[in-house]
């Protein structure tokens, strides 16, 4: 079973994304900011990180850069999500697999996840 880490400061956003992924059979971990996200990564294997751009304590691009600088996490693909336009995110960090502009439909989320890691049982 694929494990996905969802990192977002907003309770509602985590709720929606996590339940949508769990319904598809993925195992979901969550964190409220980049610092907690890195702590979660250290706890066990993760197949995909879905990271929000603007977060307190450690924002999404800072977390993503930290992942790329860490050999243990470097290969984990990243889906970035944000309410702002992609160029504003890309200026800070560009090494992600897919960008999802909020608000996005569940179908778009699931398409992006399948594109990056395949189905839950892949």
């Amino acid at each position: 079973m694929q494990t996905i880490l969802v990192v977002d400061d907003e309770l509602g956003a985590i709720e929606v994304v996590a339940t949508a992924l769990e319904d598809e059979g993925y195992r979901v971990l969550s964190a409220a900011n980049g610092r907690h996200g890195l702590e979660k990564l250290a706890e066990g294997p993760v197949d995909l990180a879905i990271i929000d751009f603007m977060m307190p304590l450690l924002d999404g691009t800072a977390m993503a850069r930290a992942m790329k600088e860490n050999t243990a996490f470097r290969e984990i693909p990243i889906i970035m999500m944000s309410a702002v336009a992609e160029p504003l995110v890309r200026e800070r960090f560009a090494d992600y697999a897919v960008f999802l502009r909020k608000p996005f439909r569940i179908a778009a989320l699931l398409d992006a996840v399948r594109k990056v890691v395949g189905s839950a049982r892949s």
Partner: protein
Amino acid sequence: MARVEDQVPALGRLPSRVEGLDEILRGGFLVGGVYIVQGSPGAGKTVLANEICFRHAAAGGRAGYVTLLAEMHTRLLQHLRPMAFFDESVIPDSLYYVSAFHTLEGDGLKGLLDVLRREIKGQRADLLVVDGLVAAQESAPNDREFKKFIHELQAHASASACTVLLLTSGTLREVSAEHTMVDGVLELDDQLFEFRNERSLLVRKFRGSGYLRGRHAFRITDQGVRFFPRVEAVFASASAPDVISNAQIALGIEGIDRMLMGGLPAATTTGLIGASGTGKTTIGLHYLSASSRAEPGLMFGFFETPERLCLKARHQGLEVSAAVDRGDVELLWQPQRENVLDELAHRLVSAVRRRKVKRLFIDGLGGFMESATSPQRVSRFFSCLTNELRSLGATTVFTMEVPEIVGPVVRVPASGVSAILENLVFLRFVERDSSLHRLISVHKVRDSGHDFALREFFITDRGVHVGDVFAGVEGVSTGIAREPASAAAASRSAKPGV
């Protein structure tokens, strides 16, 4: 002993850059202060706070917007996108949105304070908004702990020179622990008056600075939030000293100017009172058509569009259109909708200031009065407004409509307002021999004599002309003129007997 230099810096201001608000706050928020912005749901707290953030970012500042259990950022930005102040390019470098609810849930007020402190430091924010303070309050074990949280937040804000706005829902009657701690409390309200709503701001507290007290109306449109400081507060003292002068401004109608002994005293306010159809607007158009570069004119009207006014003027041989084209006259029309009284006043004063208007025609008083949600304000409102217009050097003519077209009673439309007007001119219809005649009389002119006679006047395709004294009849004031009894008797005796 050498004097130790005072090294405590003066408190600077963080302007809101929201129209009208900085005038109410005498320059804006104090840097490093913590302010509550409260109001019931829908009162406008979130739009206001976001507009302050966007404008701050546009001016080179840096702002953080922290939500607790409030609107999701995605929806929030979608709702703000149509607003004129919205500029996505300032996100995230100058304006940053985060949620701290998780932290509050997990680590309580201490964790929340830590997040706020780090966001101020990490984003180098000099403005921080916390939206949803009630969630923090509900997390506090008691009032004392919440007060401590506010106190510590104030300490960090002051040390970082970061101004903090705490948004919370609440009503006038709730005084909470945090109200005693913060540097200021701004309360937004949206009140229903029978069928219409009007939004208002009340500054309940503002440490370290004066502010305009009382309620101030505001609007929210796609241009953002716009405040209209209450006229009685902002024009409590006129902006310029009263200049005493013997100068006169001609009304532009020879016969009426003769009745006024030359014209209206300059920089005074005149009430032109009469029923519908008596010619008030026509006389006003004469007044405006005498405008020039040296005496710019302005019409501030509610009832007729500029196009209709120009047509009416043309029918009377008055070239108001040409004066508009030359820039000597401006016609400002306020459609009769749910206007805000103070907004009207500010629009008027702004136009007078902008063009240094000398000939001001306001058609009419009723348009203002219909906009007043609190009729008891009217007298003081007009007193302050006319003071300001006077100080700006405008000679103002107001029309005031009386409901009775003919009749013995002339009811001045606004109680107390006629006492404020320095000059009063009445127009009336009188019935005589089954036809209506227009009469004009001057009742009051400041510091000047005037013609006391009732004169007939005519409106023709060559304008207004004043005729002779309406003599040989009695009962004019009843609205129905008749020959004097003695004249009638003489007339009957002269007829051949039957």
